[in-house]
């Protein structure tokens, strides 16, 4: 069984700049996840379909280092 790495987002430092969304070559990301606090009603990136090809370009592009490529844990 092949294990596929996908982006794991750490939103604490995310500035919603969408650089990762545009870096994704297959359109697997979008800014859709609403922020928790409600103060700055930012949208944050997340996977929105199953197109991710594990290329890691999103993680590489993020200036705030908010994205890690990990094998999702399915406990």
């Amino acid at each position: 069984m092949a294990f596929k790495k996908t982006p794991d987002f750490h939103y604490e430092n995310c500035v919603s700049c969408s650089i990762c969304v545009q870096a994704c070559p297959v359109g697997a990301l979008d800014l859709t996840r609403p922020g928790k606090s409600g103060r700055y009603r930012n949208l944050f990136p997340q996977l929105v379909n199953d197109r991710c090809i594990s290329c890691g370009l999103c993680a590489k592009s993020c200036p705030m280092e908010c994205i890690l490529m990990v094998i999702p844990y399915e406990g």
Partner: protein
Amino acid sequence: MKSCMGKILKVDLTSGTTTIENIPDEVYEAVLSGKGLGAWYLYKNIPAGADPLGPENILGFCSGALTGTGTFMAGRFTVVCKSPLTGGWGDANCGGVFSPAIKQCGYDAIFISGISEKPVYLYCNNKGAEIRDASEYWGLDAVEAENKLIEENSGGKIPRVAVIGRAGENLSLISGICNEEGRIAARSGVGAVMGSKKLKAVVLAGSRPIPCADPEAVKALSKELGRKINKIKIPKGLGGAIWAAGIGMGKMPSMPLDGSMTTILFREWGTPSNTPLAITSGDGPLKNWGAGPGEMHGIRHAMAFNPEKINKIEEAKYHCYSCPLGCGGRLDISGFECGDYYETHKPEYETIQAFGPLCVNDDFGSVLYMNEILNRAGMDTISAGNTVAWAIECYENGILTKEQTDGLELKWGNYEAEIELIRKMIERDGFGNDLADGVKRASEKYGGKEYAMHVGGQEPGMHDTRNDPQLGIHMVAEPAPGKHTIGMAIQYGAMSICDICSWAPPATIHSKKNDIEATEEMALISKANACYSMLMDGIGSCYYAEMMGVHMYKAIEYINAAAGWEYDGDHYMEIGARIQTIRQMFNVKHGYEPSEVKLPERMQGKPPLKNGPLKGVTLKTDEQVAMHWKAFGWDEKSGHPLPETIEELGINRLMEM
């Protein structure tokens, strides 16, 4: 240049052909990309005397030299053309996500000439470009057309779309080009040029990597900026008190400021934070530029546009590509009478001022409605607002009759008539047809020229030159006159340009009255402001990055890291001077005489206002502009760039490339 694609796409809509051209590195070294690349290409390739709405005009979509490199706030694209509104140089820029999409198709810019026989759109991806039939999209508003084009071209990466609405289709000379559901590259009549070519949209779906000399160094600069912005937090609910700060600002001298000031305001409320400040300080024009805060119920209007009202209905913040600030927002307008519309982009300050206090309208909901109508139509809210305000003043003074206005009671504050009038302008219906080409042409037909606020044919941005004489210089001297984004006293005070440029004077504390005088120091200040503005446009950066100042937004460090260069600020300011000089040469080539561009008398304070912070102010803009031209090495009487200046800047050699 290691941060650019090194290629442009050329499209001829008459023959239906597309070609790719390599751009020599020397061009990027001389003018960067963005507005600079556009100026170089258009000066060379549009013949003198070309009809702006004819096949010889070229419409360019230019990305920025730093777009896509990891540089924050460098995601704006610039549209360039010969302006049908003024007859001279035309440009407009916009945020969103279109700029990186240009580069991801493999180009730094797309230049479109010719005229198609039927409506078409341009589609580009990694494989190339094709011209497709757009008959089914013609007639749709910008939002409808964009969403339909995305849906029908989906399946992989989300396509990014630049599109005209009904105003551009109808060749309104005050129409712009939209993206991201109604964000507009609004100025200079760029939408009419696109409409004249029968080009409904440009759809980009490329996914090529964008190069960068030192991505880690760029990321480090962005991380530093992002952390600073993330730390900004101010107590909730202060928006309701901003008007009071405006009263203080109106009395303040010109002075050095902290660049983070605008960052705080725009992160919390976006540009609407400026509305109450502008109304009470004298920065925002009132009643068709005919009144100051001393003559109107300024506080009532300021409270009507309290930015906290906007925060209450903001569903989500909207960030342009690569922006950590996020001054935009999507608003839920279902609680207002806005026809069939339930959502709109947060209106910009300019829009609020133009359809609010400029027309003596304090109905918040009506401004939201007009914002959405104009965004969908792709009509410039600055030009449209100035034109509507002119019509109201003419009606109030008997220059226009009810018969001429198709029965509309154009009175100050009658927002229902305002809404009906902009609908008529968009569709070129009846009286609206005569206003669809801006205030200069409307006043030539009906009279009331003394109420027609335009600078060289273009309606001015919503900042009063009597409050800021430095702005007056740029409104006139800028090759696309009437713009408010080239330079201001408050901007110069915040930028600390003197710390990166050896010849730029330091910002000092001094009375605003000193800014009225034509001095060599003032000329160097206005030159530095214009050069830095051109530099930022060349890299695709945002005006609000500029306002942060050189210590917070490290543009020079960014360029060196992304391009692999090691130049200093003086070198880059010379690039700014070169871009500005080429744009001025474009005007001279096309017979658009700089010396004939004047501020309307009202904007000069002739006669001066009698009350409030603008009381007694009369400008000396003509003298200041002459000194500004001289500082650029242009003839101080005609504004024509001098041959020796053109030679010194290497422009002759550049035009041979």
